[in-house]
């Protein structure tokens, strides 16, 4: 029997009870999640795992203080007990404005219909295992230097219901399907890896055999190419970041610093910079929670705010921050639909959805041809930023040298390091080939699905950290 979510009446009562001890706002977050994952290594599907989660959490806010609890249950008794416990708990510090809502009137769900074609979870785990074998066999057929293939398949359906003390009840239905391949190659003592994946937001549609074959072939070829690589150069030099994975640049160098919790605490280098020129006039950047087919897309965020596309940089000028309810109120900003959480066990925070730089008019070929010498970062392996200083670092999974306008030797082991404010100013060319990639963003100990992307672009100078000191 499928769970159909809390009734508006029950949700309203729970929220009202949570607020009965005083507070500015309360909300209830209810979640049901089913997931299935398979992992192949050494040519064998070595594990098949299912997970079922059903639970709810309640938050009561007073000023900037949040009181939070959750239950691994969704019945009225369990949620009512939790609400009662939270309303009876005293916290120290500023009690803020005491607002007592007598009863929150629940409205009918405001959910938009999920844009999915196939919603039922198929029970055919063997069909998924078959795809992993195709990936394994394809990658191994590319070269005798392929030593190991790890392939993972994951699908999940997350349904959420959010009731707020404003009387709003929202819901969303998020289905994600992904297939990732890691290929390890070896020549003598040198081991290299290639990694990429497919991420689908089209109901429970499985990847086609052809998509898997093409992905596995591509990843294996790249891992073989990296066996010819030289140690990465070291020092300051121009960097061309390829489309797709290069979007980690905006995510780390700028995106995190625009999240309103850092802005409110004045622990972001981007605080106070709205309306300031932060990049050349051909630079545009967005956070788009509605992006069709993107990994971080949803009808609403995890506080029930409808998703939207927020312009963050317009013609080089900083135009927006990313908010959740708590910080938007305090900062006097509008809601942007960025209050997100990993699951019902966590408080929401301002988080990115899908971020990307907008496209400009150059072709990537023009940019490369116009570059005498640079590091070409084809694929990045992720990164990290300190929002307070803007200092970021990210790893180059697949890199090459550009010499005299041509992509030449592959290089390995490169790390890019810089500071957000400087790197945005240093963008000197943007191409027309915007592409998005899926990822998982970590913050506050929570992982949420995000999309990152960009067109190919060039940065005048960045510090490249490699092992080659010559």
């Amino acid at each position, binding site marked *: 029997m499928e769970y159909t979510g809390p009734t508006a009446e029950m949700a309203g009562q729970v929220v009202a009870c949570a607020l009965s001890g005083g507070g500015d706002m309360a909300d209830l977050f209810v979640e049901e999640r089913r997931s299935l994952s398979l992992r192949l290594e050494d040519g064998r599907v070595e594990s098949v795992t299912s997970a079922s989660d059903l639970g709810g959490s309640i938050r009561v806010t007073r000023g900037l203080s949040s009181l939070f609890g959750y239950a691994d249950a969704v019945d009225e008794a369990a949620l009512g007990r939790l609400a009662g416990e939270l309303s009876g708990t005293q916290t120290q510090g500023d009690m803020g404005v005491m607002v007592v809502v007598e009863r929150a009137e629940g409205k009918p769900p405001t959910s938009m219909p999920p844009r999915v074609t196939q919603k039922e979870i198929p029970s055919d785990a063997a069909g998924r295992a078959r795809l992993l074998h195709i990936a394994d066999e394809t990658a191994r057929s590319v070269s005798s230097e392929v030593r190991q293939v790890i392939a993972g398949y994951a699908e999940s359906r997350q349904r959420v219901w959010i009731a707020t003390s404003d009387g709003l009840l929202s819901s969303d239905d998020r289905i994600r399907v992904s297939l990732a391949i890691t290929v390890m190659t070896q020549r003598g003592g040198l081991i290299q890896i290639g990694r990429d994946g497919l991420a689908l937001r089209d109901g429970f549609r499985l990847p086609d055999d052809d998509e898997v074959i093409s992905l596995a072939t591509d990843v294996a070829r790249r891992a073989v190419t990296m066996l010819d690589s030289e140690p990465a150069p070291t020092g300051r030099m121009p960097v061309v970041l390829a489309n797709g994975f290069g979007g980690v640049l905006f995510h780390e160098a700028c995106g995190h610093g625009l999240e309103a919790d850092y802005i409110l605490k004045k622990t972001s280098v981007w605080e106070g910079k709205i309306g300031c020129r932060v990049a050349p006039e051909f630079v545009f950047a967005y956070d788009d929670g509605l992006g069709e087919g993107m990994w971080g897309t949803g009808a609403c965020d995890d506080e029930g705010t409808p998703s939207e596309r927020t312009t963050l940089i317009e013609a080089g000028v900083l135009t927006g921050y990313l908010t959740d309810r708590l910080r938007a109120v305090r900062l006097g900003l509008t809601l942007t639909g960025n209050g997100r959480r990993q699951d019902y066990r966590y408080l929401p925070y301002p988080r990115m959805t899908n971020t990307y730089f907008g496209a400009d008019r150059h072709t990537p070929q023009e940019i490369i041809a116009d570059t005498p010498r640079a590091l070409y970062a084809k694929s990045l392996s992720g990164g990290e930023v300190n929002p307070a200083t803007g200092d970021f670092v990210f790893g180059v999974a697949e890199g090459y040298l550009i010499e005299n306008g041509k992509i030449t030797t592959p290089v390995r082991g490169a*790390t890019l390091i810089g500071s957000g404010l400087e790197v945005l100013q240093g963008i000197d060319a943007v191409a027309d080939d915007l592409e998005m990639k899926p990822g998982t963003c970590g913050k506050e100990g929570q992982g949420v699905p995000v999309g990152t992307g960009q067109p190919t672009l060039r940065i005048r100078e960045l510090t490249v950290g490699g092992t080659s000191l010559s």
Partner: protein
Amino acid sequence: MKSSAARNSLGPASPLQVARTVLARGRRVGADLEVYVQFGRTVNIKVFGREVEAVAVAEPRGLGVRAVRDGRVGYACTSDLGQGGLDRVLAQAVDNLRAADADPYADLPEVPPRSYPVVPDLWHAGVSGTSLEAKTKIALEAEAAALAVPEIEVVEESVYSDEEARVAIASTKGIEAEAEQSFCFGYVVAHAGHGGDRQSGLGFCLGRDPATLDSERAGRDAAERASALLGARPCPTGSYAVVFDSEVAAALLASVVQALSADAVQKGRSVLAGRLGEAVASPLLTLYDDGLAARGMATNPFDGEGVPQQKTTLFENGILRSYLHSSYTARKEDGEARSTGNAGRGSYRSLPGVTATNLIVRPGEGDLAHVMARVGEGLYVDSVAGLHSGVNPVSGEISVGATGRLIEGGAAGRPVREVTIATDFLQFLSSVSDLGGDARWIPLHGSVRTPSVAVQGIAVSGT
């Protein structure tokens, strides 16, 4: 949500009782079963600006079932401990094994141990016996200690967090184990400012009893680390003798030890494969994995599949002595190895996999200043960034961002930021040239006890 001092604050039904119930319900499914049950109680308090920012109290519960038949493994987990939930998780685990491929070595641990090691003091009444107010005070005191340092402009967050966890395992092979433990920790992120310059630093404290947490020191550490970096700028590119702060040494060692997983070795994912008995590391380096260390946060009588934890020598004076084994990787050695009790689980949500417990480095002599004095000229690294993307556990390459200070004339010189350091597992291990006597427990990357470590010939990229 009152805190209770009662020993049985986690409720009447023990995890072991739940595990036995699931096994009983699964008698007729026609597969070997292992049930892992986890009950917890957690408190997380965050303060900002001398006020409470968030209080979260939770009692997470869940279980996972591993089903094995003819070398095929299925797994399912749930937080729904009702009868419907238990029946579904059993059915899913058995369904799932049908889609897996057979592996002749895949099985549950065969022989239950006669007894488990007795590890005293894993659980302390202080965690459940301390009020929310007192716990909040710990976070507030840590914040105040950081704010008392004049250079500190803002404390981004000061957090107190604790957990009581009770875990049980039962299997159709006869394993039955249950253990309970508690721990608590605090951490502070402080930002120092001067002119337009802003730098940040982290401090932490940990223990099993909130009363023993030195929260003021955590706040002071965060403040001092942030202040020390004011005015930092890149240093010249070159090859340096680097002194790694114990915090950074812990992170790097935890990365390197991934290559000692027998699973990585057997599947060709380790640069340390085939090197047992060889002098892989510097003769100064002796490293243990000690699953029973008295103060280790990863200490437990048994691992994630009910095998007793133990102390294993990984490097002895630089010689590679052992890999880390689960029952699966040991079985694959056809009698040449046995499980070292390193089948770890992040939680009930995951299958056991090979992981380190507490990594312990045999210390050298002298404090950090002595190590810098002995190194003479070089770079002291007090934090690194980008470990997740900058360490390749398969190829062994390490390239990460770093902050710290130059070492000039045997003492700490000007602060450094926006540089990268690059090395690889084998170079890092073999080039250790000195160890301090300042060993301490670092909980940030697993559980590691290490002193500061000096390594020669590290590539630094700056100006």
